């Protein structure tokens, strides 16, 4: 029988104090400056800390984890009595995570993830134990879930399937961001420059804040998370280890993977680089879409793909490009978008022109230039979107998997297993119908509830065949549900 490590009480106290402290400070408004509030806030925080400590201790004392031969039994014997059974057969993964407090106390967080899309945003349960005990327990549980006899110590000796240096991780942080995020960063920078010209300190602070939120945080978070990256496969289990401050160790069975994706953001594509990602059921939170390979040259990513998860490779597939006639619905779609966007920018120009009557000529010219530049950039982006989508989108059908190459600025080459498709929707708009074209949405169960993947424009019967193949595989027995439990 196990209990959480007592440090969980301290964690709860710190979290509650930070939360309450922030709420108090944010609601103080102008009275922050006079300083007389400090004793009162301190008193409130002491009371909160004491209350949370007592409640947390009570819950800690009354909550036990028992590991039987078939299940985990979690008993909460507080005023709200609860008995929770998690069968090992329902567990998709047991992951280890270590944060700053864990490093201080020499503990690890064990995260128990079940095969469910309902509560997949969070682990079903977590248990904090001393690092060595957590490692041993995870080994035992893994041997039951994955029929994997290898221990954690032996795991550490398995060589990584691809060498990823920390320089690669820094490059990944900068170049693997979605293009929309990079555009947002550029716009925030332009906004900051304009605010400097206007001499608006408030505007400059908000521009820098936007830049920080949209660009800096994602890059830093990515670098911190994937630092010291390692990936390896033992039997049917893939394990990823990484982390600079928080250490992550995620293991999942190959049969829990729905699809594998080679992702190429525009900036990375310019350097022939890509990342490899997987859609996995049963991993929770930040590990929901594990990165099987941070940014590397596309050829290296493809080699790793064949090596680490060959179940999704099918050389017999013959991808077909989106038909040229698909340009018609795409161009018309973009023209409609332009008809909406350009007048909005024009109205913005007219409104700003009235507002800027009092400013000198330079500032008015600057804003006019900005609006006209935005109109031109919008048109260029629309043309670029159509051109890139048309030249890259593809579709192919294989024995066990099918392929959608979708996206435009950011390209995704997605290998999807027929047996993981939950339902399909083939849709054709007014224009596409005239040319016998459709787009197909396939719905998969995912770690974040459900995931939709949308193809480009292809001939309707070809896309209809995806759903028909899913049904046919169920009917003739090629789909065997036992493979995925």
């Amino acid at each position, binding site marked *: 029988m196990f209990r959480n490590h007592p440090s969980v009480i301290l964690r709860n106290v710190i979290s509650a104090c930070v939360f309450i402290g922030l709420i108090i400070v944010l609601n103080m408004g102008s009275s922050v400056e006079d300083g007389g509030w400090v004793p009162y806030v301190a008193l409130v925080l002491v009371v909160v800390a004491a209350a949370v400590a007592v409640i947390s201790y009570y819950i800690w004392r009354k909550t036990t984890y028992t590991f039987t031969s078939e299940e985990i039994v979690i008993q909460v014997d507080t005023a709200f009595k609860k008995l929770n059974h998690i069968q090992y057969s329902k567990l998709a993964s047991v992951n280890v995570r270590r944060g700053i407090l864990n490093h201080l106390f020499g503990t690890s967080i064990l995260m128990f993830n079940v095969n469910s*899309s309902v509560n997949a945003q969070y682990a079903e349960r977590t248990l904090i134990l001393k690092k060595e005990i957590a490692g041993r327990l995870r080994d035992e549980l893994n041997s039951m879930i994955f029929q994997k006899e290898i221990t954690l110590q032996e795991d550490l000796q398995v060589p990584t399937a691809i060498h990823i240096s920390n320089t690669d991780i820094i490059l990944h942080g900068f170049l693997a961001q979605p293009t929309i995020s990079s555009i947002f960063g550029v716009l925030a920078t332009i906004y900051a420059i304009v605010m400097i010209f206007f001499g608006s300190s408030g505007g400059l602070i908000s521009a820098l804040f936007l830049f920080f939120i949209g660009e800096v945080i994602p890059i830093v978070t990515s670098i911190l998370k994937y630092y010291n990256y390692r990936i390896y496969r033992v039997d049917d289990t893939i394990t990823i280890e990484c982390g600079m401050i928080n250490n992550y160790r995620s293991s999942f069975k190959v049969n829990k993977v729905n699809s594998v994706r080679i992702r190429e953001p525009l900036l990375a594509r310019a350097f022939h680089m890509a990342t490899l990602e997987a859609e996995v059921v049963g991993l929770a939170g930040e590990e929901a879409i594990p990165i099987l390979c941070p940014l590397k040259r596309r050829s290296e990513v493809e080699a790793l793909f064949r090596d680490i998860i060959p179940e999704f490779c099918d050389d017999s597939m013959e991808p077909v490009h989106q038909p040229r006639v698909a340009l018609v619905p795409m161009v018309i779609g973009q023209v409609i978008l332009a008809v909406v966007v350009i007048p909005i920018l024009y*109205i913005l120009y*007219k*409104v700003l022109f*009235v507002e800027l009557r009092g400013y000198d000529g330079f500032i008015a010219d600057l804003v006019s230039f900005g609006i006209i530049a935005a109109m031109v950039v919008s048109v260029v982006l629309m043309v670029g979107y159509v051109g890139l989508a048309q030249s890259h989108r593809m579709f192919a059908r294989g024995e066990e998997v099918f392929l959608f190459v979708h996206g435009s600025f950011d390209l995704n080459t997605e290998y999807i297993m027929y047996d993981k*498709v*939950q*339902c*399909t*929707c*083939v*849709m*054709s*708009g*007014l224009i596409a*119908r005239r040319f016998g074209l459709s787009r197909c949405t396939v*719905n*998969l*169960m*995912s770690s974040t509830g*459900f*995931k*939709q993947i949308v193809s480009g424009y292809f001939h309707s019967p070809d896309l*209809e065949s995806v*759903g*028909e193949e*899913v*049904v046919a595989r*169920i*009917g003739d027995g090629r*789909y065997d*549900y036992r493979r995925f439990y």
Partner: protein
Amino acid sequence: MNKDFDVDEEGLTIDGYHVLEPVSKKAMYLRNGIGFVILALVVAIIVVYRQDIFVEQVDLGMSATMVVFVLLTVYLIVAPSVYYRRYRYRMDDDKVEVRKGIITITHDMVPIERVHQVNVSRGPINRRYGLANVLVTTAGGTVSLNYLEEDLAESIATKLNEKIIEMLKKRD
């Protein structure tokens, strides 16, 4: 009308799909009528407060509002007839299919093996005309069979549930 929508004595189209009963059109018109009243109220509020809303661009703002109002009104009038004419559904031992749409036509296909849950729902408009919707839920999303007669909706839901139970029993 397109021959695809002609039905035989058993109420099936040439490719084995069912079409909706004519009463469903009344429910759609009533729903859109309520939608129109709400839309008209919003436009009336915009007209009353146009000076405050559009400030120095009143003419431009009012023109845009009226264009949107006319387009939405035409849509609300025409949509039920087109939706009714195009709506088709079919269910066999393996799958449930729904074809529907007004501007964009969609074809949903759900393998029965993937169905987790089946719900029958009746809103106030559907209840007035003795209609119901069947919501088919999978682990990856939902598909809805709309504006079915209540008895039919119940029988489809029962059949689906029976198939799921039968499938689960086989697995045990």
